[in-house]
Structures are given as structure tokens and as C-alpha cells.
């Protein structure tokens, strides 16, 4: 993981290729095992993710929340934290963001939209800061608390859409009333691709520059790699835990409210197709490098988008794309580990 062990050129070239080959082999074996013809199914995945303008736009739509959640994982990882809470932060952001929309329903867009985004960001940050506070103050392992709070946040959303915020006009369907058009972010290319994608990419680039060039990035590196030296230099571990977790939570919260307002149009109990967990794995595959996170998020977004296409075109259940996603991570972790052990 350290930058010191710089791979030689051929390794840098061959590693991604071997990774890709391993993942394709794993997926091929899996397709064979469930009685499908591997090559045609792989081709179908590629076509339904990138085949035409519509497919590409749906891929980008799925990429946005994954990218934001990957940032929410990678930033705390810079101080050595393992937060798996993006899913919960996303839900809680969607929850309170929706609350703001329902309260400010009639207000014009220039109040409604920023208010909604800020509320969601603060909500995600607060949800994340709860675990950060437990870690910084009492040393409670943040991986476990963030994981458990994911379920609590999802249950809270389920509660409001079945209960107090349920739209009486929606018959049996548990959801809030439809968001007003003023609460939707601008879209591009005549598709569902929204401003959130550009926010996410901009966030990734900004964090990349900050980590490389700013004093803050340097401080985080020192805390992670040498806690004792950090203490000697007067760097406050707890403060940086709170800041990185809160910023991460804010990004995930924004992902949640944008999915709710732009993609689903109302709050319902299933918001995210597991974007929080995909984001976690993307961040780990990218080794928390903010630049590498962007193409990897696109790749996983493509996989998930292709799931819908597969279901329609080939009658393949959507859970297949979940398995393929898992095989992607297994294959890459395996090959990366193999290369790392050869180097050392």
C-alpha cells in the first residue's frame, strides 16, 4: 500500500490486464455454472452498459452515488479509519432532506434545492459523526458501529414511508408524495444524468489535489502512517477523525437525497441498490486514491446498470449482477494480493 514500493513498468502494465482476465474467467465460470453461455452474456453486459447513448447515460446515473459513497469511504481511510457507513449516511441524508422538501414544498427552487442539499449533507455528516465521536472519544471500533447504524437508518426511512410521511393518495404503495419539480437537480444530455455526477467528479478531483498539495493532506498522511510522530507534532487524531468522517457523511447524504429527488422522485424504502457498499469496495480497490476511484466507480456503475438490461433482454435475474460485482472484487483483490506478495 505504500508509495515506496513503486512497481516496475511491466508490472504497472500487466497488473490491470491480469486483473481483467481473472475477473472475466471468474464470471465466465459462474455463467457456465448457472447454465448460461459465457461469451454472449458478457457481450450482453457490455452492450447494456455502454451500447448506446441511453445505456451509457444509465451507467452514469448509477455511477454518481457509488462515486460519492466511495469518497465517503476513502476520506476517513486517509486517517486509517475503516468506515462502512456510507449506506446509512445515504439513507439518513435522504430522510432529513426529504423532511426539508416536505416542509418547504411550495417554496421556489432557488430556496428549495440548496436547502434540501444542505439539510441532506448535514444529516449525513451527523450520522457519520456519531460513529466518529465514539471512535475519537472512547475508542469504539468504527467499522462495527457504522455497519450497525446502516440498518437503523434504513429502518427509519421505512418507518416514515409506511407511517407519518406516507402519501395518502399513493394507495398501498409506501412512499412519500412526489417531489416538486423545483426540487430536482438540472439534468444533461436529454437523459437522467444529473448535476450530482459532476459534483461527485469535482469532489474527487478536489480531494485529490487537497491530499497532494495541502497541509491538511500531509497531516492526514502523518496521522495514518505514524501516529506517534503525529502526536509529537501536536496533530489531533480525534479532530481529524471527526472532520474526515463528517465530510464523508455529507457526501453520502447528498448522494441519498439526489437519488431520492432526481431518480425516484419520492422517498421510498429502497433508495440505493447498495451504492454504499459498492462505494466501500470501490474505495478499497482504488486503495483510497481519489483519481483511481473515478474509473472504478464507472466500472461498477456499468455493471449495475447492465443488470437492468440483462433482466429485460435475457431474462437473467438482477441478483446476477450482484454476484458479478462480488466476483469483480474477489478477482481484483486476489490478483493485487498476488502481485504484492511477489514484490515483497
Amino acid at each position, binding site marked *: 500500500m505504500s508509495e515506496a514500493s513503486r512497481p516496475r513498468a511491466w508490472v504497472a502494465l500487466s497488473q490491470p490486464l491480469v486483473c481483467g482476465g481473472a475477473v472475466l474467467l471468474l464470471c465466465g465460470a459462474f455463467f457456465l455454472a*448457472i447454465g448460461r453461455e459465457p461469451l454472449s452474456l458478457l457481450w450482453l453486459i457490455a452492450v447494456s452498459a455502454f451500447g448506446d447513448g441511453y445505456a451509457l447515460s444509465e451507467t452514469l446515473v448509477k455511477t454518481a452515488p457509488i462515486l460519492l459513497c466511495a469518497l465517503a469511504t476513502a476520506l476517513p481511510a486517509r486517517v*486509517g479509519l*475503516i468506515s*462502512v457507513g456510507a449506506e446509512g449516511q445515504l439513507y439518513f441524508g435522504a430522510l432529513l432532506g426529504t423532511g426539508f422538501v416536505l416542509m418547504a414544498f411550495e417554496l421556489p427552487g432557488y430556496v428549495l434545492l440548496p436547502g434540501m442539499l444542505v439539510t441532506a449533507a448535514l444529516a449525513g455528516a451527523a450520522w457519520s459523526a456519531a460513529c466518529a465521536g*465514539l471512535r475519537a472519544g*472512547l*475508542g*469504539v*471500533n468504527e*467499522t*462495527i*458501529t457504522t*455497519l*450497525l*447504524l*446502516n*440498518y*437503523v437508518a434504513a*429502518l*427509519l426511512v*421505512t*418507518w416514515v414511508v*409506511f*407511517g407519518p410521511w406516507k402519501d395518502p393518495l399513493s394507495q398501498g404503495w409506501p412512499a412519500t408524495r412526489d417531489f416538486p419539480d423545483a426540487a430536482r437537480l438540472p439534468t444533461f444530455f436529454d437523459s437522467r444524468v444529473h448535476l450530482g455526477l459532476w459534483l461527485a467528479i469535482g469532489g474527487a478531483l478536489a480531494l485529490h489535489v487537497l491530499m497532494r498539495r495541502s497541509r491538511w493532506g500531509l497531516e492526514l498522511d502523518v496521522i495514518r502512517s505514524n501516529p506517534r510522530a503525529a502526536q509529537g507534532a501536536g496533530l489531533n487524531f480525534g479532530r481529524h477523525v471527526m472532520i474526515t468522517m463528517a465530510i464523508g457523511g455529507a457526501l453520502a447524504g447528498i448522494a441519498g437525497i439526489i437519488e431520492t429527488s432526481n431518480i425516484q422522485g419520492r422517498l421510498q424504502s429502497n433508495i440505493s441498490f*447498495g451504492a454504499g*457498499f459498492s462505494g*466501500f*469496495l470501490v474505495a*478499497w*480497490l482504488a486503495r483510497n486514491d481519489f483519481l483511481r476511484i473515478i474509473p472504478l466507480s464507472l466500472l461498477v456503475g456499468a455493471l449495475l446498470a447492465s443488470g437492468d438490461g440483462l433482466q429485460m433482454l435475457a431474462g437473467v*435475474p438482477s*441478483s*446476477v449482477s*450482484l*454476484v458479478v*460485482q*462480488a*466476483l469483480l*472484487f*474477489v478477482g481484483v*483483490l*486476489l*490478483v*493485487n*494480493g*498476488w502481485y*504484492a*506478495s511477489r514484490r515483497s
Partner: protein
Amino acid sequence: MDGLDALGAFAISALRSATPLLLVMLGECLTQRTGVINLGVEGQMLVGAMVGYGATAASGNPWLGLAAGCAAGCALPSVHGLLVGGARANQFGSGLSVWMLGFGLSALLGSSLVGRQIAALPEIRIEALDGVPFLGPLVAGLTPTVLIALALVPVVGWWLYRTRTGLHWRATGEVPEAARSAGLSPARIRLNAILVGGLLSGFGGAALAVDYTRTWAEGMSAGRGLVAVGLVIVARWNPWLTLPAALLFGGAEALSLRLQAAGVTVSAHLLHTLPYLASIAVLTLTYVRSRDAGTPAALKAVMDR
């Protein structure tokens, strides 16, 4: 006497809810003792539940179903063993991949099982206790998996603390270098621990589907595996303490069900947050009281990085 009966009914309801969790915790406790944390138990539970339910539906024999669930739960984490042991991948990333794999596979292969009926495990009846306050309702609710799980607590405790292999496993988690120089293979011991943890989590999943809920649904473990990983810390990696820790979750779930049945107007969804919040609360208390005392050294290196 009514009060005692209600207490007995509550106790058994907590125990039944705790049983799948207890089985997973016993396995994860052994795994973590050797210095490996496995978040994949959540997916292993799901695969164990799906295979256990499917095998019961196909064969008509719930015992066969439980055995099949154990086998499936044992097979899946070989991926974790390969990634963590062979490729030295990050344990949290690897565990999440296993979880996702288990979730996807069980949803895919289990879709035809939704709504199927299965045969029940035999009832346990002790007629002498019918009508006895507290004990009567307690025993009336007992099921075979509850008894097996309770029996496994002392077995695992004895095995870990009193046998030679148990000592080897603990040494692997505390001082792997010493274990290695004593001629042991920490890598092999950790792989074994991951597989045993898998077997017990598969059993836990099967107990959940075949005995406790008697249904199969996608994602039905609902975080129990992750709760188990957290509660193992609460139990300070001591198999004997897994029972009270599991009962904490079971008690919170039983309480939320009891409150609903009693017509409390609080939403069921809100009440369902209770077990998770209770787990976090007691985890926090554990950290306040004991900090890092008792954490296997190799595991501490993984968790604190």
C-alpha cells in the same frame, strides 16, 4: 402465577431469537481468536439459510436441511481464506466481498423457494412440566436448535481453553511468531478457523430459516451476522460470554415483538431498531470499561491498522 408465565414466555422468545445469532457468534469468536475478522458471516448466514431451507423443502427432512446449511456456510468463506491467507487482502474488504457474493448467490438460487412450505423439526415436550409456572411456557417454546446452540457454548468454551488445539488457536491470535517457531502453521490454523466459523454461521442461517422463521426471503438475516461480529467484541472473545451477549440482541428483539403484540402504538419499524441500538450501546460500554483488554494481539493489528 400469570406474571411468571409471561416471564417464561418472554425468556424463551428471547432465547429463540438469540439462537441463530449465538451459533454465528461462537464461530466468529473462534475465527477472531486466531486473528481474523470475517464480515462475510452475513453472507454465509444467507447461503446457509437458503441451502438449509431448500434442502428441507426438497428432502422433507429438516435435519438434512440443517446439515446442508452447515456445509454451504462452510464452503463460502473459503473465498475469505484464499483472499486473506493467500493474497493477504484487507480483511474488511475481503469480508464484504464474501458478504456480497453470499447475498447475490442466495438471492439468485433461492428465488424459487420463496413461499414454499417446509416440514418442521420435532417438538420438544416434557409433560411433567405442563402447567408449571415459568418453566412450563419456557420449555413449551424450546426447539432442537435452541438446545444444540446452548450445548455448543460449553463445548466451544472447553475446546478453546482446555484442549491442545484450542491453545494453538489462541497462540496464533496472540503471538503468531511464537506459534510458528513452535512448529505450528498460523496460516493453516487461520484457514481452519475461518472454515469452522463458516460452518457455524451456515448453521446459524439454517436455524434461522428452517427453525426460527420457517421461511426463506432474500436478505433475511438482516444484519444478524454483522451484529454477531460486533457482539463477539462485547463478549471479549470468550465463548462462555457469547450467550449473555446474544441474549441481549434476542431480548431486545423479543421485547420489540412483545410491545407490538401488546398494541403499543409505536411503529414496528422503529421498534426493530432496538436490537441494533442496544448492540451499539453495550459495545460502547464495553470499550469504556475495558478498552483493549483481552483483544487478541493479531486481531488488534487488523482492527487498528
